[in-house]
């Protein structure tokens, strides 16, 4: 039996474009934590990357001098913007902790408990987020 080191390419399938790739995620049967983790990771990943660009953009404004920086700071002190930014903590926790779960599961460790791991990721992330937000607003 000959074995090729490159995976064989199925004859009829077309290589997908980016739209089809994203639609592929949306076709999840859903209803189980594994799929929820998959989707969460992708969505938080995209949002975090988007935020990174925003962050770089904001830092660029530092080069424009104290005047433009002050107006940006005023924007960030807006409570609604603060609330949105605080979501960052949730996304980082989710993405980061799920990343740890994936690092273990995707090399064969604890695969049987992958749903329980994700439940823990959700619990810790939302818990941490709640504590930090409450501390931010000086409730605790």
């Amino acid at each position, binding site marked *: 039996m000959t074995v090729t080191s490159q995976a064989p390419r199925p004859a009829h399938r077309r290589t997908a474009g980016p739209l089809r790739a994203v639609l592929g995620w949306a*076709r999840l049967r859903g209803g189980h934590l594994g799929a929820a983790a998959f989707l969460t990771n992708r969505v938080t990943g995209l949002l975090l990357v988007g935020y990174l660009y925003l962050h770089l953009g904001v830092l660029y404004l530092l080069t424009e001098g104290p005047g433009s920086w002050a107006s940006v700071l005023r924007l960030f002190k807006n409570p609604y913007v603060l609330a949105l930014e605080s979501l960052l903590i949730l996304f980082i926790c989710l993405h980061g902790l799920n990343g740890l779960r994936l690092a273990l599961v995707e090399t064969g460790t604890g695969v049987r408990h992958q749903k329980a791991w994700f439940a823990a990721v959700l619990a810790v992330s939302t818990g941490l987020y709640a504590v930090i937000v409450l501390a931010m607003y000086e409730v605790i």
Partner: protein
Amino acid sequence: MTATATDMSGQQPQEGSRRLRIARRRPREEGTHLEEFTVEVGPDATLLEALREIRSHHDNSLTLRYSCCHSSCGICGMRMNGREVLACITRLAEAGPGPILVEPLANARVEHDLVVDMRELYESVEPAHRPLIRQDDLLAGLGVGDTSPPFARFEDCIECGLCVSACPIVGSDSRYVGPAALTAAWRSVAEPRGADPADVLAWVDDEQGCWRCHASFECAEACPAGADPAGAIMALRGELARRQLARIVRLGRRER
């Protein structure tokens, strides 16, 4: 059970009847159209029973595959309301109220109606040495500590293609070998039966092999046979990671 074709004007079905909207397609035809049938059913009727009823007594041009009627042959795979199922063991009641959408499996070429081309699946499994028989000693209904002599049995995987249909990566990248092939590969590695697993491991150790998976676990959820494709893929990775680490350790020892 009786079946009638209706238009899709949304009339209320009678008590004890279900509406099935079935994807119809003929070869050399562009696109698929949905055809609706109303079937009188009992509370435990399976999707396969409803489809056979339509075929026997209403429209025998509706083509579908089935054989064993008990999730052993794996050829009646299709999608019910978007979910991959084996028609023979899936009750219509699981679909909830309302019309039921019946489509062929995804990520495979549709030959006609609910029949898809299985060639790709079998070709994808070839490099894994097609394991068919395994050793086992796990009998149900026994307590811990009971021993029984091992027996030979068929592999869990019934090559139904539900995992391939459910996988979002297969759905977005045609080069990925897919969960079915990787499950077979893991079985060849876990139980080599005299063959050398190194060439199978070399085959899966590829960016389109076991590393292409992104852990959505859709395959394991879809699998009706308990073959755990996701577990197999992660086990392959674990094995590859272990071997790589061992190589690094050996390298380190040599240099000292």
